[in-house]
């Protein structure tokens, strides 16, 4: 296959993957989440490189299946490759995506992952995604999914989730 055709195939697969959503955050695509690392052409077919957010994230299997299903519409021989390195980080989530999270009631990761104070909630302010108050407190560093911590707002009293910065 000549280069322009392989390029077209990769682009077609990428377009298909634009519709694959994170099953735990169904308003965000796997691209926006930074889980889709690469799509390239190898041995006559496309290879989709995905990375898991957490070691045991059960969504990884579903995301692989959904991606394959979407890609095989344009490339029946598309393959999935799971890559562990470099390890996924919330630094790959863009500001625009963070705004989308907030609009959907989830406090987005704040700052960069190398700032360790963001790890455990010590000394950081996570504004309430509902009333925007900065008077909030962490209830638990763990939440409904591996990637979220549980918070509550002292002003509006609503519980909410914060996407952990890792």
């Amino acid at each position, binding site marked *: 296959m000549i280069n322009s055709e392989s390029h077209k195939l990769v682009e077609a697969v990428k377009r298909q993957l634009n519709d694959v959503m994170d099953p735990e955050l169904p308003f965000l695509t796997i691209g926006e989440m930074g889980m889709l690392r690469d799509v390239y052409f190898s041995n006559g077919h496309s290879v989709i490189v995905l990375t898991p957010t957490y070691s045991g994230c059960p969504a990884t299997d579903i995301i692989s299946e959904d991606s394959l299903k979407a890609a095989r519409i344009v490339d029946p021989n598309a393959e999935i490759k799971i890559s562990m390195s470099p390890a996924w*980080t919330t630094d790959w989530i863009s500001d625009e995506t963070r705004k989308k999270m907030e609009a959907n009631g989830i406090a987005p990761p704040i700052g960069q992952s190398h700032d360790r104070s963001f790890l455990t909630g010590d000394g950081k302010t996570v504004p309430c995604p509902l009333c925007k108050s900065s008077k909030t407190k962490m209830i638990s560093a763990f939440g409904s999914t591996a990637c979220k911590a549980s918070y509550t707002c002292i002003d509006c009293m609503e519980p909410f989730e914060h996407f952990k910065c890792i």
Partner: protein
Amino acid sequence: MSELQLKELLLRLGDDCLVLAQRLGEWCGHAPILEEDIALTNISLDLLGRAQNFLKMAGKLHDQVKSDDDLAFHRDPEGYRNLLLLEQPNGHFGDTICRQFLFDQYSLIVTKHLASQTINEEISAIASKAIKEIRYHADHSSKWMLRLGGGTAESHEKIQNSLNNLWAFSDEMFEVDEVHSAAIDGGILPDLQIVKSQWLEGVMSIITEAGLEIPTGVDMKFGGRKGEHTPHLKEMLEVMQILPRTYPGTTW
């Protein structure tokens, strides 16, 4: 190190995570408060993911190829290579926290090395992901040690007893046999004597702040790395393995 030794090392790393994941999973629906039910099972899930990664690697080496599920569900206790500490029953919440605390502090140090070493890239990739998760686990177990140690007279007494009972399993983490020796010489594992002193320093700082004491004159127990386990592992595996062993090859 030889391929067989690497496989053995991967089984140890994987089994530590798998056995502790299963123990923590036993808390599902039983923890004292909802937040802890969620925390313990979240930690369990992280450990299970790490176990899968290590066991998948181990299954590809030496002998016939085995999947991570084969290794998890079709080995008897004698085939398991986990630390005795991790198979100990959940006991009360303080026992579970103390077991977790002793392991998290060890896991932090060893996994940092596994992530930074350049001898085996696949192990480094698994560890680089895991270290981000272990920091959360260690923070969680340390804060509970402080809370329980510095809490009421009852919580203090209970967590001190947990520490007294589990301390006998602590030296096994730093045991050096042929496999570990080869892994240390090969640069994959850190020097376990140095790990021990760093671990003791970390553990002592929390224990002291919590007003707790390390028991003395404890008869240390070993054997997990050779497959010589306490009877608790057999009981745990019977529950964990019953479905795939009763209906071999069954799928969802």
